[in-house]
């Protein structure tokens, strides 16, 4: 099972990696990475990663 990362808090862009829950590994979106190939195969089977966690509430004011 996999889970998406939250979007980048500054750029707002998708993170180019996926969280593999079973071992807490971060899998980069690099085609040469064999774990990424396993993730693509998992997607091809019709699976979907979990959505990212809700954004944390900052204890510091942002403005």
């Amino acid at each position, binding site marked *: 099972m996999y889970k998406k990362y*939250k979007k980048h*808090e500054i750029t707002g862009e998708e*993170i180019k990696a996926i969280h593999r829950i079973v071992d807490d590994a*971060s899998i980069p979106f690099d*085609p040469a*990475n064999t774990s990424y190939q396993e993730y693509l195969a998992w997607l091809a089977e019709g699976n979907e990663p979990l959505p990212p966690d809700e954004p944390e509430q900052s204890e*510091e004011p942002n403005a």
Partner: protein
Amino acid sequence: MAGQLKVGGNIIASHSGVEGAGEVTLQNVTLGDSAVPSHSMNFRNKIINGNFDIWQRGDGPFTTGYSADRWVDQGSGATLSMSKGTFTNGQTDVPGNPKYYMQWSITTGNDNSRITQRIEGVQTFSGETVTLSYWARHVSGTLPSGGIKANLRQEFGTGGTPSSTVYVNSDNISLTSNWQKFTTTFNVPSISGKTIGTDGNDYLGVSLLWQLGNDTTAYSIDIAQVQLEEGTVPTPFEHRPYGTELALCQRYFYIFDSTGLDDLLYFRSPYATGTPPNTTASVAHFHPVTMRASPDIIATVNGGTINRKTSSNKVVVFQMASTNINGAYAVTSYTANAEL
């Protein structure tokens, strides 16, 4: 014999014209340009960690996946363990004073059982003759009745429409309880006309101790000094400096450990307090060598929660909320994995 000796053909070593009568000592020999070897004599062994000196993941026993650096089990259907064996100081059964060997113990046999090294690039040795050599002994149990052999496997990777896998097998080997050197010469098929995947994960696999048949008996084999080189001659095992061999391994896997550090590599925020968005703190670590691909990262911290870990083949960046950094949080260990 004084003067200049020019030889236009093969040299047959002899003494006083009688072959095999004694030793021939060559002195002050100058090799002409045409005497250059047809292939490199440096780094001739394409196997990394063939001497089993590097065990970054620990000494085992391992029951699946990687064990000694670069060596992975492909024991689907079998149960097994792999662990680090240590030679007795001064032993002479295996030459060259190796320190360690691989202990390969099958608990339940299966015809998929084998140990493999994946050599980056399916072009490796394409269309060439190579020699695989290694030392092995049967330690205990009953060897599979179908035999054990080695093989080479050309894997063309993923991406696009890569060609199918090509195999080349050795003959069966006959193990005894004594260390023996085994040598097999392979004609590696040419990849001419083949299509290599576009994802950069193609390789030449070298598999040893491949069980034939579905015997489920238990047995143990030790293996040492694995070498794969161009040509038909098994040259003496190539001993590379430890640091060189470790760096070769770290292209595919390494472990960072903060043990021994009095201060840690702490997360820091790039933003001044109160500066929006002020919600991010990060720390970057550079890999010891450029890795084969962007690696998987598994990390531990001394507190707080890592939001994400992103990596390239040169660096990894860990990120957590900046609100945590007053806790002096740091990454205390991690693994980076870019194996094939």
